[in-house]
């Protein structure tokens, strides 16, 4: 009931509450401002060199003249850096690619037979006949693995004829093993 009466009896100007906070803050600022101005200096004590503003325009113009070519130079330099970076990247990629190929471990299968033969021919293995005999199985050994030239049958007969007294006693017959 009281609320109703209040609403009927008291009225506020239209839009009063809409601008209330602004008006309050204005009043607070002004009150503080006035209070401050009563004991706060409005001047802040800062000074300038004599004639500073007179030469300012000239100084800015000079700085602008210096800065303009500098900007162009920076752009060019930036482009140069882009190209340089691209070149460095290409070199790095190529080097890495080549290095990868070089670093591949050689396998026995990759070696050509001629390379192996060359190796044995040009390098002293440092092995004695006995050591070679140990590592090479005898049953797989052929006479011509050791001898370069084939012994002709004639030479054998000649050898036997000269070495023994009667060659016929050997009873050599064709196709007899």
């Amino acid at each position, binding site marked *: 009931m009281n609320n109703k009466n209040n609403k009927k009896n008291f009225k506020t100007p239209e839009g009063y509450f809409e601008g209330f906070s602004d008006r309050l803050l*204005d009043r607070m600022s002004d009150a503080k401002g006035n209070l401050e101005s009563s004991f*706060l200096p409005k001047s*802040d*004590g800062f000074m300038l060199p004599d004639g500073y*503003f007179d030469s300012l325009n000239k100084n*800015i113009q000079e700085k*602008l003249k210096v800065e303009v070519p500098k900007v162009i130079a920076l752009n060019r330099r930036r482009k140069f850096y882009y190209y340089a970076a691209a070149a460095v990247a290409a070199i790095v990629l190529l080097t890495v690619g080549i290095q990868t190929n070089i670093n591949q471990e050689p396998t026995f299968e990759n070696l050509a037979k001629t390379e192996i033969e060359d190796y044995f021919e040009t390098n002293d293995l440092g092995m004695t006949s006995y050591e070679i005999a140990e590592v090479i199985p005898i049953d797989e050994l052929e006479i011509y693995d050791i001898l370069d030239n084939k012994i002709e049958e004639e030479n054998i007969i000649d050898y036997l004829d000269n070495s023994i007294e009667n060659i016929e006693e050997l009873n050599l017959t064709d196709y007899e093993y």
Partner: protein
Amino acid sequence: MIAEETLLNELKQLETQAKAFEVLVNTYKERLYWHIRRIVLNHDDTDDVLQNTFIKVFKNIDGFKGDSKLYSWMYRIATNEALTFLKKKSKKLGISDSELQNKMVSNLQADVYFDGDEIQLKLQKAIAILPEKQKLVFNMKYYQEMKYEEISEVLNTSVGGLKASYHLAVKKVESFLKGD
């Protein structure tokens, strides 16, 4: 004083650019100087930042679409340049932003271009400890007497927010000055 729109058109045309830029510098140099000076405090640093601000304005004028007023745009550039300058400086010295602020205020005592008395120096100390936004609002409102609407365009903050910031800033400054 030349109308902003005319000045802007002249700045964008090659034949009139140089003259228009001179007008622009002469029109805004003092206001921007004091805006920057109250952020970086030292004259030489202010001079560097101010020149860089105008150079940036000149180089980017073609990109200015006119969504805001020219002076607000320039103020925005000046504010960003000054704050970036301070951030670089603190990084270079290897100290925090608040340490740099204290150092800058301490240096004022030996600064030949600072003639402040004890209360003015104390006021600078009080401003130095304010958060960045409150500091900017305080300087723009208290010293430069800018309208909230103008500050709002520069800092891209609502007028209500600025009023609250200013109120808080004044309260903190007051409390600092009455502190001891």
